[in-house]
Structure formats: C-alpha cells, structure tokens
C-alpha cells in the first residue's frame, strides 16, 4: 500500500505524475532546488521539500524519509535511470516506482543490454569499441549511459572519430556522470519505433502498442504519434512479440519502453530499453485508454497488471508535439525569459501537459521542454488537422519557442503522407523558414498601447498608454 509519494522531478512530468497520484488518493511531495523556488510543479503537490540537487540520490532518499514518503517516483531524466537511486531506495525500505536497480544497470549500459537482447533472440545493431573498418562509415558515437541525444555524434569519416568521441564523452560525463562512449553502425533512413511494455512482479508481461518517434532534431524527438504508418498488423505483432521477449529477458518490473529502429526494408533492430516513463507516453494513454502512471504505481505496490494483452486495443490516432524554449530558425539555440502570455488551446481530443504558465521564468538551468501538446482524433488525418488547429490557438509569448516550426512540419505533404524517417528535417529545409508577417500584423504592432513591456502584469492587450476610449472598459 502506497500512501505518500515523493516525486523526484520537476516541470511537466512532476505535475503529470501528481495528477494521477491525487486521483489515487495518494499524498504527493514535490522537491525543488533554489532555481525552482517559484516553479509550477510546487503548486501541484501536497507538500514541498527543498533539495540541493535533483541528481543526488542519497539526498532524495533522505528527503523521502524526512517527509514520511513510502515511495519515490523518479519521472524521466535526472535519476530515473540511475541504479543508485533505485538501490538507495531499496536499502532504505522505500519503494522505487520503477524496475529493480539491477535491471536499470543492465539496460542503462547500452553494450550490456545488447548482449542480453542477443541472447533473448531480439535483433540488435552492430557495434564496435573503437574505430570500425572504413566501409562501415558513417557511424554513430553514443554514450554507454546516455539517452535523449546527449553524448551522441554522427561521424562521417574515420578522421573525425577521435574528436567526436572526446566531445561526446565530455557531454555524457556532464549529463549522466558516466563518460564511456561506443561506436554503432548507422542505419540509413531509419524510423524510430518504440513499444510501451508493462511487467508485474508475478511475471506477466504485455505491450501497449508502438509509438513512432521519427521526427527528431539533433537526435531528440519533437513529434511522436501512434499508431505508426510504417507498421502492418503482421509487423506490429512481430515487433510487439520481440518487445515482450525483451521485457521477459530482464524480468522487467514496471513500465518501460523498448526502442527499435526500422529500416526502409522492414528490418527492425533493438536500440535500447528505457526503464522509466517516457516523455511521449501520453499518445499511448490517449489511444489505449489506460493511465501508465497508475499502472506504474500499482505494479510498484506489488499489484498484478490490470490488463491482459487481449484486453488492449487502440482507438483512433494520437499525436504529440513537444513545445521547446528554443529557436529552430537559429540552429535550435535555447531561449530563456519570462512567459508573458500563455493561452493554451482547448477542446475535444486535446491534452496539454505543461510545466509552465503565465509568469513562469524559463532559465538555462534545465532542459528546454516547456509543455507537451497532445491530440487524439478518429483518424490520422483528423489528428493532424486537430493538431494544426491547436498549435494555431496556442499563444505563448515572452520566451522564443518552436510552436510555429511544429506547425510547419505537420503541414508538409510528406508528414501528411506518413513519409517519415529520422532525417526528415534535413530533407525539409523549408520548415526552417518563418513566414514574413502580413501587413495587418505590422499594423497591429503599431498600436502603442498594444505591446506589453516585459515583466508587466495584467491581461488586457491595451493598458492605458493610449487614449481613454470606451473599448477599454468593455
């Protein structure tokens, strides 16, 4: 029985986890560092507790004990895939909402995880410890302990390998505290297809279908959807079976994701397994009708899976767009500032998982993910139209962001046709060009009372800088 959970995370995922816990009538504790004193996730929790770092597992476990929490939910990123937090929790008698520390250790080591998958009969991508033979280029340099594109480099020829490995190693060391890197064969025109899996402590395993995550920038996903246009029923069954075999091979306990790359010929390879809730989990929830965080909590408390494989089906189509504080038109440079206007979209089939609101301060301390906009509709075509409408309704000003860029991507004929691969953005340079403003926009900007100075509160578009016309009082 879990009564109180410390959420060892921040931003949108801390808030999303808190929502499910409250529905389960479980008390929640939010943690925060000095950079997050005024952040939105603190308002979503019953209690708050300050910490020096989100990355110190001993401190997180101590905080959980001090608050009387009986479980820790790690979210994604930070310590979610750190065997240290899982182990420290296990030792302190606190339930870690995730797999066992040994499973995290094996799956977090990309080389070790491949060996385990090969033994379980799951196909994997070839790798090398050092420089591969010349005909194998281009290759990818990857962090052994990595994820999310950090510590990853594409290397076109052997001469650049040493520099790329050093740079990736540094970035990995900073981001994950593990600077080991390795070299992997680069599959051309790959699609990134992952399967959500669930496993309980009684040895039951299911998959909850796929997510297509092929639209990426700098090896990081920005648009995800389910179902994938690349999968036939037959291929879905084969990949789903492989994903369940992967989970079984490590006696997986909790919610996890088995990532595959799919080549244009329909061959798939195990890439890695993420032993945590994924950023893009909402598209699965929207189409399969379950709450993955609830499943995580029930499994962690020793419960059985609430579903058998045959109970599950997907209804409709779901797409997620990640709203980042960054400028895609300027090489994706991160943006900072205060959110001056925040008017999110609403309506049928629209879900917003946001870590920010009007007045939120966006700093360079953390990942630039601001919010996730998720839509669900009866067909893929309807989902695209719904997403276009929702992005168009979304007003987020004060911090540069990628909302217009996302709109341009989903408006391309290739996106509509489902012609996706991880090189999509390289093939569509047109999405990097923002439209010239219509003359009416320039006119509206020329209303002297129309602009809000940074930091100024208020909701009216025309604070009384201009005349005292009757419109102001309406």
């Amino acid at each position: 029985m879990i009564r109180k959970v410390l959420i060892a995370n921040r931003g949108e995922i801390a808030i999303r986890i808190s929502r499910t816990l409250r529905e389960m009538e479980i008390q929640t504790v939010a943690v925060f560092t000095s950079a997050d004193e005024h952040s939105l996730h603190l308002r979503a929790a019953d209690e708050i507790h300050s910490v020096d770092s989100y990355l110190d597992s001993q401190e997180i476990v101590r905080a959980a004990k001090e608050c009387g929490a009986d479980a820790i939910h790690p979210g994604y990123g930070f310590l979610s895939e750190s065997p240290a937090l899982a182990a420290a929790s296990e030792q302190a008698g606190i339930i870690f909402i995730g797999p066992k520390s040994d499973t995290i250790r094996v799956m977090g080591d990309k080389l070790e995880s491949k060996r385990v998958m090969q033994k379980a009969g799951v196909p994997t991508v070839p790798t090398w410890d050092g420089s591969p033979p010349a005909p194998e280029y281009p290759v990818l340099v990857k962090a052994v302990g990595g994820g999310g594109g950090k510590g990853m480099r594409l290397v076109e020829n052997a001469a650049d390998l040493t520099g790329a490995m050093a740079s990736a190693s540094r970035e990995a060391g900073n981001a994950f505290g593990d600077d080991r890197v390795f070299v992997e064969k680069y599959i051309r025109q790959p699609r990134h297809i992952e399967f959500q899996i669930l496993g309980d402590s009684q040895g039951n395993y299911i998959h909850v279908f796929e997510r297509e995550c092929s639209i990426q920038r700098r090896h990081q996903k920005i648009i995800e959807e389910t179902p994938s246009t690349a999968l036939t029923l037959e291929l879905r069954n084969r990949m789903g079976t492989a994903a369940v075999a992967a989970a079984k091979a490590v006696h997986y306990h909790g919610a996890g994701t088995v990532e595959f790359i799919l080549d244009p010929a329909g061959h798939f390879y195990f890439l890695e397994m993420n032993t945590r809730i994924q950023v893009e989990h909402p598209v699965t929830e929207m189409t399969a009708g379950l709450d993955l965080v609830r499943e995580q909590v029930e499994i962690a408390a020793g419960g059985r899976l609430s579903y058998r494989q045959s109970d599950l089906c997907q209804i409709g189509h779901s797409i997620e767009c990640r709203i980042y504080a960054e400028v895609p038109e300027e090489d994706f440079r991160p943006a900072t500032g205060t959110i001056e206007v925040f008017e999110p979209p609403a309506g049928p089939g629209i879900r917003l998982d946001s870590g920010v609101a009007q007045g939120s301060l966006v700093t360079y301390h953390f990942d630039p993910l601001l919010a996730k906009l998720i839509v669900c509709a009866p067909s893929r075509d309807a989902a695209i139209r719904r997403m276009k409408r929702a992005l168009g309704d979304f007003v987020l000003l004060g911090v540069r962001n990628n909302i217009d860029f996302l709109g341009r991507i989903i408006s391309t004929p290739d996106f509509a046709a489902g012609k996706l691969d991880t090189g999509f953005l390289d093939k569509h340079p047109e999405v990097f060009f923002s439209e010239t403003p219509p003359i009416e926009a320039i006119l509206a900007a020329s209303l002297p009372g129309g602009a809000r100075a940074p930091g100024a509160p208020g909701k009216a578009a025309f604070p009384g800088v201009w005349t005292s016309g009757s419109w102001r009082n309406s």
Partner: protein
Amino acid sequence: MISREFHWSIAGHDITVRVEESQGHGTFHVEGRSLPFRLLQSNWIEIEGKKHRFHVVRSGNEYTIWFNGHTYHFARTQNAGLGQAAGVAASGEVLALMPGKVLRVEVEVGDTVEEKQTVVLMESMKMESALRAPRAGRVARICCQVGQIVEMGQLLVVID
C-alpha cells in the same frame, strides 16, 4: 485624435506606419494606403472590416507579434530608413548566443584563426555548442574563462 509614427524593419525592408486613433477607432497609413480600423475587445482588431486576433510583447525594440495563429519577430527602428545595426557580420566579436557555461576556450591571444573555426565551446541546457569565428584574423582579446557563466550577448572573444 492622436497621431503616431512607427518605423519597422521587416526582413530587410523598412516600413513606416502612421496611426491615427480616437476612442478605439482610427486609420493606419502605410505605403500610400489608408486602412480604417476598430479595436474590439481585448486582443481583437478589425482592419478594413476584417477581424483579427493578436497579441504583442516587446523587449526594447524587438517585438513579438502573435497574429491569427502565427508568431512573428521583428524590430522597430528609431528613424525611417535606418535599418538594424549594420556591419554585425563583418565584426570580429564572438558573442554568447545564449546564456550558459564556458566549457573550453580553443584559442589563445595572438592565434591566427580561419573563418568558422571553433573558438569557444559552451554548454547551455545540458547541450554543447561551438561558437565559431565570424571571420578570419588574429585573436586580439579573450574576455571569458573556462567555467564562467555568461549571459546572452556577452562578449567572449575579439578577432582583429
């Protein structure tokens, strides 16, 4: 009736808008045309009988306009015909493109650098990025240190 003039720099073009307004009604004068407008409730404007939804925020002379579902960024200039600071591309200043930490300085004072050669490595939001020389030349000054937290636009290296 109040009348004001605004000068904008839009994708390299200078545009002047003169606004006359009284009691929420008025006229825009732009490029020889006169367009009547009416302010509706918050964030709605009717121009030539057509309704538009909009939001404006500004930081100095940089304006961000959300207009009918799209966001645009453009700059206000002080005088008509005077574009944004000219000669930025020709300058040898290497500025921080974003706030973050200096990871490495790849050059020393006196070094000769090629155009686009990496001079500083920065980390921001856990991602590494390389700052490159805007032009070929000699490193005249280094204004940052490894480990230093720098602000956006801060001067890091000067190339003669």
